[in-house]
């Protein structure tokens, strides 16, 4: 594990090399192109050294294909909607990109509605597109409009942490009170619980555990939750 | 005849649509679009004293780039923390008439950047000691407005404007002035004296294209395509006053430009451009 700065070359070599975020091949004319870091962070690789990436935190979301996002509808556009997912451009969500949707039967989203969706198209020259069904099964699988609840903003690293099944926070919160959550890779987490104080406790815990903020660990968050009247 | 005309038109369209590739094709043939070689300069002409309403003036042509500069002297009170120093206020205007690049309205960013660089070149390198503009310490000093206007813009306005400003300052005369303590007024006599310039700088700018080719005296077509621009300012004896580089370049780029600037300075006859 080592810290790299942009422009440094990385000793990544493998017959089936896959480069993740923060790395790119050098544009030079060498026979074997070198691998260069494009952002500052910790250099990581998979166990067999075939996948390399730079781990770092960010706040601004840049859409990537097949990532899950929480978005907010900002307007109608033809047959679909424009959705704010925190990136530079608004994403578009087609009216038919829902499970079982047809011309007759389309979900009724309004400006301000929250949705949980999958990025189906992310290309630098085009605006991102969203879909609210699973790519294989074409079933909703939890995607679609998020009714009620509350959206917490956090850093991108925090949302990745929350999606990691081994991360402590969501199980810990779930052990204290019933909670629905939808975690977007775009640094937005939707939470919904019966009581407002539970929603507030969950929101504060996510903010506190965010490495971009307090960066509290499990012990500290437990202590913090114990201090609350839940 | 008709064929050459359409060929010309085709070349013009190509130039507008793919300026970079257009320039690359020329560079590959070791020549630039205006038939110059890489380190060739455009013709320079300096005419002084043509604006009779100014206290000093100059008209400079560098190829098609044309700049007029006038010096106007006024009397003002000095600043409290610098009672013995006058003011030298250089300004370059790039009006909409000089190039389609510029829009009418308040000074563009480019004009502001150039004005600041010119201010730097004139004041920081002490061309005209500000103390020589003092009439009565703490009471009355000269303000010299050095206003340059670009009439036709074809790149490298910095070199042309600096030459125009220095030539205009060299051409300028100011009345002999005395401060009357009893009335608190400054009186000017009819006899005029030239300014005492400490040095006569001239600028030589270069651009680097595709990180390898150093182009001297870039035109307005070449300028936006350059990755790096370098400017060398020499005094009348060909000694270095300032050297600047903006953009990535190898270690030998700046020394190469300095050598070429000195060579050009020699060709122009040293500080003789200001002797007309």
């Amino acid at each position, binding site marked *: 594990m080592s810290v790299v700065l942009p422009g440094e070359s990385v000793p990544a070599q493998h017959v089936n090399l896959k480069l993740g975020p923060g790395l790119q091949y050098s544009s030079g004319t060498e026979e074997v192109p070198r691998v260069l870091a494009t952002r500052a962070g910790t250099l990581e690789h998979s166990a067999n050294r075939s996948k390399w990436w730079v781990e770092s935190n960010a706040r601004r979301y840049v859409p990537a294909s097949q990532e899950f996002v929480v978005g907010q509808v900002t307007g109608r556009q033809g047959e679909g909607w424009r959705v704010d997912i925190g990136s530079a451009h608004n994403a578009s969500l087609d009216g038919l990109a829902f499970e079982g949707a047809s011309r007759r039967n389309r979900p009724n989203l309004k400006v301000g509605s929250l949705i949980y969706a999958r990025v189906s198209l992310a290309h630098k020259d085009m605006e991102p597109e969203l879909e609210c069904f699973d790519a294989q099964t074409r079933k909703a699988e939890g995607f679609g409009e998020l009714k009620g609840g509350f959206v917490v903003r956090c850093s991108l690293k925090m949302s990745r942490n929350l999606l990691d099944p081994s991360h402590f926070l969501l199980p810990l919160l779930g052990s204290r009170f019933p909670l629905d959550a939808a975690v977007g890779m775009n640094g937005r987490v939707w939470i919904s619980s019966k009581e407002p104080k539970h929603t507030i406790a969950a929101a504060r815990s996510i903010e506190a555990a965010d490495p971009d903020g307090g960066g509290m660990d499990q012990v500290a968050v437990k202590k913090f939750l114990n201090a609350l009247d839940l | 005849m008709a064929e050459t005309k359409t060929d010309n038109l085709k070349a013009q369209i190509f130039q507008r649509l793919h300026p970079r590739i257009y320039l690359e094709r020329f560079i590959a043939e070791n020549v630039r679009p205006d038939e110059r070689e890489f380190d060739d300069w455009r013709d320079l002409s300096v005419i002084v004293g043509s604006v009779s309403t100014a206290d000093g003036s100059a008209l400079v042509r560098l190829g098609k780039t044309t700049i007029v500069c006038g010096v106007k002297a006024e009397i003002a009170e000095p600043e409290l923390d610098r009672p013995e120093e006058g003011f030298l206020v250089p300004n370059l205007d790039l009006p909409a008439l000089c190039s389609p690049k510029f829009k009418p309205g308040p000074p563009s960013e480019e004009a502001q950047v150039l004005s600041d660089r010119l201010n730097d070149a004139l004041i920081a390198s002490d061309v005209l000691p500000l103390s020589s503009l003092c009439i009565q310490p703490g009471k009355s000093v000269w303000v010299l407005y050095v206003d340059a206007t670009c009439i036709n813009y074809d790149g490298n306005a910095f070199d042309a404007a600096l030459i125009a400003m220095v030539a205009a300052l060299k051409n300028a005369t100011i009345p002999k002035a005395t401060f009357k303590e009893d009335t608190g007024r400054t009186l000017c006599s009819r006899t005029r004296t030239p300014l005492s310039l400490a040095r006569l700088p001239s600028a030589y700018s270069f651009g680097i294209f595709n990180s390898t080719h150093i182009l001297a005296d870039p035109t307005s077509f070449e300028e936006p395509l350059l990755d790096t621009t370098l400017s060398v300012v020499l005094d009348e*004896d060909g000694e270095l*006053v300032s050297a600047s580089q903006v953009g990535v370049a190898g270690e030998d780029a700046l020394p190469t430009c300095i050598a070429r600037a000195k060579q050009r300075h020699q060709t122009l006859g040293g500080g003789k451009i200001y002797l007309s």
Partner: protein
Amino acid sequence: MAPRADGRSVSEMRSLTGIFERLDRVDGSASFGFGETKALASVSGPIEVRLAVEQPSKATFEVTLRPLSGIPGTESKSLSASLRSVLAPSLILTRNPRTLVQLVFQSLTPSHSTHSPFYPSLVASFINASTLALLSVGSVPMSGVVCAVAVARIRSSDLNTSQPAPTLTLVLDPTEDESLASEGGGCFAFIFASDPADAGTGVVAKLVWTDWKAAKGTFDEGELSRATQLAKVGAERVREKMKDSVRSLDGSSDTSTTLKAEDNQKEAMEVEEDVDDAKMEI
């Protein structure tokens, strides 16, 4: 070596500080300082771009200097234009076309002089703070790191030497007072990146900006190259400092290691109460 007013040798820099500031409303922010000369920079991007400055093939990079008071004048406009050209080579703007990368920087130390408020060391700290802020953003890909440092030409008689004849000395990282008393000087910025021409794995420094000038007298090529070498050594140290800052940022955010530590040692339960209770209250 002749000590300077603050006891430093000619090639010694003041202590460097590089801090990621975590400003709330931007995507990344940092401050950088050479001793007391400190600057703050913030970056947002890629964000939505105004139609007027949208570019079809790359992101628009905007740099703004916010003066401590008043509106930006010609000088600060010119400085932000220079900084834009200095920092742009370190960014890969083609990855996010039709977007905006916005950089704002500000001095944190008021200048004593109203005539030349941007002395070279302050400009160098502007550049370094901007680079650190760009590093902290994470969402704007970069091809290298730009580090800057200032050098001044000072007559030896200004330094307390025993030499009778005053000779010009080049000093690294001049203070504002040293810059005011100097006979010129300038700021040098280098971009540190892997060199495509060199097969080695190390990074090389390439000059990306200088504004070397003589306020009195003239200089020669030798002096310029000595100043460049001196600045290069200084810029290396700035880069080391930046790497340290990134390292510390990463260490503090590494939740997985703290988690493991907790699992292994149950006594971690009695860990000191450093929780900011006031902030956490609902």
